[in-house]
């Protein structure tokens, strides 16, 4: 259970996964935010109106996936680092976009060890892009090229040397 392990359950994840029809069209955000806590920066970060306005600051975000462009502004704004970008449109791989706040800063082309929600190693992937959007207080948006079948599992990574 999420509140005793820190790891969301399959059913919780299924409920927030963007529909396959939307995923096949291009990058889209997945919000892994399940708990009613007072927090609203994602709503303010989204420039496309994809995060519905919070009537109550404790609401969990409700996302209009058709409006979401997968731009990643919410990914770097979220204090909980709970938002990820999924792109399943490339033919031979998938891309996952993650918030990253560790040093050293990864470089495009660098090989990384892919980790799941429990920090278990899944295999190798490659950094495809590193960006530092103007919002987000310096949190980086790191995009990783990963095997297609891992798109629902890769949520973190470790650089080959020098990171925890």
């Amino acid at each position: 259970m999420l509140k005793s392990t820190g790891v969301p359950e399959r059913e919780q994840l299924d409920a927030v996964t963007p529909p396959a029809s939307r995923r096949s069209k291009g990058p889209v955000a997945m919000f892994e935010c399940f708990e009613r806590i007072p927090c609203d920066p994602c709503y303010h970060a989204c420039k496309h109106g994809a995060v519905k306005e919070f009537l109550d600051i404790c609401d969990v975000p409700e996302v209009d996936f058709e409006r979401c462009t997968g731009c990643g502004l919410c990914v770097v704004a979220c204090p909980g680092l709970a938002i990820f970008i999924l792109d399943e449109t490339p033919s031979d791989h998938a891309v996952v976009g993650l918030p990253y706040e560790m040093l050293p800063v990864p470089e495009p082309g660098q090989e990384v060890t892919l980790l799941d929600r429990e920090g278990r190693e899944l295999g190798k992937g490659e950094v495809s892009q590193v960006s530092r959007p103007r919002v987000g207080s310096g949190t980086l948006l790191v995009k990783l090229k990963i095997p297609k079948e891992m798109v629902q599992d890769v949520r973190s990574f470790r650089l080959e040397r020098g990171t925890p």
Partner: protein
Amino acid sequence: MFRTELAVVGAGPAGLSAALAASECGVDTLIVDNGSTPGGQLVKQTHKFFGSKAEHAGTRGIHIARLLAGELQRSPQVEYWSESTALGYYEDQVLLVEREGRAHAVHCDALVVATGAAERHMVFPGNDLPGVYGAGAVQTLMNVHGVKPGERVLIVGAGNIGLIVSYQLLQAGVRVAAVVEASRYIGGYAVHASKLRRLSVPILTSHTVKEAHGHEQVERATVWQIDETFTGVPGTEIEFEVDVICLAVGLSPVTDLLCQIGCKMKYVPELGGYVPIRNENMQTTRSEVFVAGDASGVEEGSSAMLTGRLAGYAAAAYLGKCPDFQNKRAECQRALDALRAGPSGQKVRAGLSVVVSMEAGTC
């Protein structure tokens, strides 16, 4: 004698917000803090704050401190004394402040006490070994002075502070062996716990530290499982090779000054300990004394800013300088109610229900 209309003790988010609100109403304000830079807890918080965007959520704590301190600087009516400790407050409305080795008497017409909260300790064999730290000390070393507290850390307590400090340790390149938590559930927000799990940090609920071992300093920690009665279960011991044990087992409001003043206090476990009885305007049973932030009950940065602002306006109204007080009050209260509305606010709501009382003065 130094004279000011309002004296504020504590330059954390609550005290800074109180000073800003009062000065906005034209009240001459002196704010004193024993730290070297304004911000209180904020100067150690390198993570992005959760909470309300209107109260700077999504911004890192250190940057919120700078924002508030910048506003303070632009406010000609506020004087700020750093490295100054309020020692006591007397019948004749004199606050005694130690500054640069000298005692200064400050006469004020109203006082806001925003002294924050202090960490709790925990009893176990070896807890006096060097290497056993409070989470605040770990943060001060690491985030204020840039000094690593050790190489491998065991965190005790999975509330938000324990989870956040664990993450900050990882960022500093320190290994976190595990987070242990006595309760069956993670007390902090799930997102903070998930962040750690993704980085391979185990979180052991229903576990606590049994003993710390080492000669000159911590070298090892024994952790064991505890049952429903919070008693250790023999045979479940796990050993961790660590050189730091970081305790994040809760905070208690710092209320010595309020006690000394003679404000009526009440022990409210949901708010972290002894807190002053006050009315809805943060006014205590001593009519010119107001309270704000964690000193009024342990909550969060967003609520500290709001109770601070409320106390600042209320103090201004008490001094006859806030004609629009009812509207300003309602605005702060609405935002506070919203923050405390969810399940995470349940404890605070329960605590406030017994401590906010008309017994306290009316402004």
